[in-house]
């Protein structure tokens, strides 16, 4: 009998890991639909970012109570998953607490610490749920989150609570176990006989591990994917001053040929599109940013446009980019290659009015705990609007022609540029 359950468990494990890996590879492929950019310079600085920003959660610690709660979830997630190793071994070989005899005194120490963390995670998740649903913090009740994103956030927290509950129940129903937190639950199970206890332990064990497999497979579809992508995203984060916009070499050549036509190569194809209209025109880092976003909304809370009621929300920019990228990915899965669906990120997901509201103040970039730059995407889409569609408000067209003709954004005579030296 144990032999059969071992095989069933093994099959389920293989399916769970296989489908998780498959989805991750699809996400990797989707990210690489983006424009190629080299982000491998200064490895030391990049590892520092991984260490401080991702591992150390430096930006989270701007708000210490929330950072501590988040740290509990994060440490809990990593540490409690060490116990998964034993759970899997027990499942496959039908053993019971496989590592106990080998670890001696260390074993109860480990399990006790897992239990304390599990209880803390349980409490932290309840606090987080109440911040979203009872206290209703401003950044969690924004329109960005209407519908699925709100459910997604609550679902993650509820699943965590259930999983932690099952882990503790499993230990409590194990007559041979006596650990710190689960022993406190034992009195609740005191009038059950040995068979009933065993059934409860076994059910809790099965639901717990299947729940974990389910959660693992839910991860790539959820905002929660940041627990994986925060690390590479910190490594590949821009090391340039935030104010620097990347240079467009294609335009540089155009300008050069306009000024010195003799340099222009003949019979060369016209340059590719200018700026970004769709996700494929963005850089792969922009696309990894989109998958790394956990929709916390710190960007939008700090955005001057958003806080004064403009349509722009940097969080929505990231969510839209991911949504569109998923659509494009599914299109490729279905057709073998991307077949034009008549839609683009610009216009169909992100509107002109949103893009026009940005002051490029970098508050969103500064806030993001996982090194995302919504601004980079906004600026690439703006480039497309102006250079591909000639879509500018009339004041901007005036500004452009002033710069072109008078070398200043206002209509002043260039000869008066030094007139201030003659004033008293």
């Amino acid at each position: 009998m144990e032999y059969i359950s071992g095989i069933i468990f093994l099959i389920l494990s293989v399916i769970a890991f296989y489908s998780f890996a498959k989805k991750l590879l699809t996400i990797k492929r989707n990210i690489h639909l983006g424009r190629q950019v080299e982000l491998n310079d200064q490895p030391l600085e990049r590892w520092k970012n991984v260490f401080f920003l991702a591992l150390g959660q430096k930006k989270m610690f701007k708000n210490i109570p929330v950072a501590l709660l988040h740290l509990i979830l994060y440490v809990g997630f990593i540490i409690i998953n060490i116990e998964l190793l034993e759970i899997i071994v027990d499942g496959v070989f039908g053993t019971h607490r496989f590592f106990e005899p080998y670890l001696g005194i260390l074993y109860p120490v480990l399990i006790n610490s897992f239990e304390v963390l599990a209880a803390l995670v349980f409490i932290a998740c309840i606090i987080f749920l109440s911040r979203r649903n009872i206290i209703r913090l401003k950044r969690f009740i924004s329109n960005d989150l209407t519908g699925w994103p709100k459910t997604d956030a609550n679902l993650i927290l509820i699943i965590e609570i259930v999983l932690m509950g099952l882990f503790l129940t499993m230990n409590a129903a194990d007559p041979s176990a006596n650990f710190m937190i689960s022993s406190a639950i034992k009195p609740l199970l005191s009038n059950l006989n040995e068979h009933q206890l065993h059934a409860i332990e076994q059910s809790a064990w099965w639901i717990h591990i299947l729940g974990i497999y389910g959660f693992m497979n839910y991860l790539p579809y959820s905002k929660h994917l940041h627990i994986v992508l925060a690390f590479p995203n910190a490594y590949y984060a821009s090391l340039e001053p935030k104010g620097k916009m990347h240079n467009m070499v294609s335009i540089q050549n155009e300008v050069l040929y306009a000024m010195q036509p003799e340099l222009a190569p003949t019979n060369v194809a016209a340059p590719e599109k200018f700026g970004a209209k769709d996700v494929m025109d963005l850089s792969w880092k922009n696309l990894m940013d989109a998958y790394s976003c956990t929709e916390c909304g710190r960007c939008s809370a700090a955005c001057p446009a958003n806080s004064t009621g403009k349509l722009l929300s940097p969080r929505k920019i990231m969510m839209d980019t991911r949504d569109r990228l998923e659509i494009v990915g599914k299109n490729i899965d279905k057709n073998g290659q991307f077949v034009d669906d008549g839609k683009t990120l610009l216009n169909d997901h992100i509107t002109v009015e949103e893009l026009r509201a940005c002051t490029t103040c970098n508050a969103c970039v500064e806030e993001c705990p996982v090194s995302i730059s919504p601004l980079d995407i906004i600026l690439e889409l703006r480039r497309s609007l102006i250079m591909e569609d000639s879509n500018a408000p009339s004041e901007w067209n005036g500004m452009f022609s002033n710069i072109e003709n008078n070398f200043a954004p206002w209509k002043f005579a260039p000869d008066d540029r030094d007139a201030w030296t003659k004033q008293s």
Partner: protein
Amino acid sequence: MKVSTMAEMMAAGTKPEVLFWVGCAGSFDQRAQKITKAFATILDKAGVVYAILGKEEACTGDPARRAGNEFMFQMMAYQNIQVMNAYEIKKIVTTCPHCFNTLKNEYPALGGNYDVIHHTQFLQELIENGKIKISDSNEWKGKTITYHDSCYLGRSNDIYEAPRKVLESLDVELKEMRRCKSKGLCCGAGGAQMFKEEEKGTSRINMERADEAIETKADFVASACPFCNTMMTDGIKNRDEEVKTEVLDIAEIIAKAIQ
């Protein structure tokens, strides 16, 4: 006032220590011209040999680039770099954080490599080196000042201390706004917003920032950017009918405080 241009210096066979990049606002905007003149006065008093490009200076292209017009940006950059490289410019100081960011971070990719500093950094150096002396009985002494961080100095280039250090040398009380330094709220002008109507919303960004400045009850608002100056002045004018909290550039404040 007598300000030499690079062309004049070249003709006279001399070279300045530093090029003063005035910028479009500093050259043409009536309010910003006062900042330009204040800074030029300080340079003169400190005995700095400087020059301007004068009629040869052109927009750096910053608002065009942020609006999305890369082509126009590169045209302007190409033109300015040609002029500056011909004069063999090494060091630039500017009173505009937008020009500062573009010259410093964006011109190198196009062949313009200069040591670029912002006027608040330059003022800090002048004070620390004793080139300018703050009067012990300066008119700001004992006053409270709140400093508004420009995004293009602060978050964009991590310059938070220089402007504050300069103000501290005045023996004033610095009062920070609710959101300051890396959390500082934008004035609303960046990203070419200065050159168009604000998008539809529930309030204006400069009004929100003006409220924060007024909340500090400071006697003056110090700015370090001609665009922030305009936005903050307008915001406060609209909010504060009774008390006219003045918005002054750090250069103007220092110009009035030196011996």
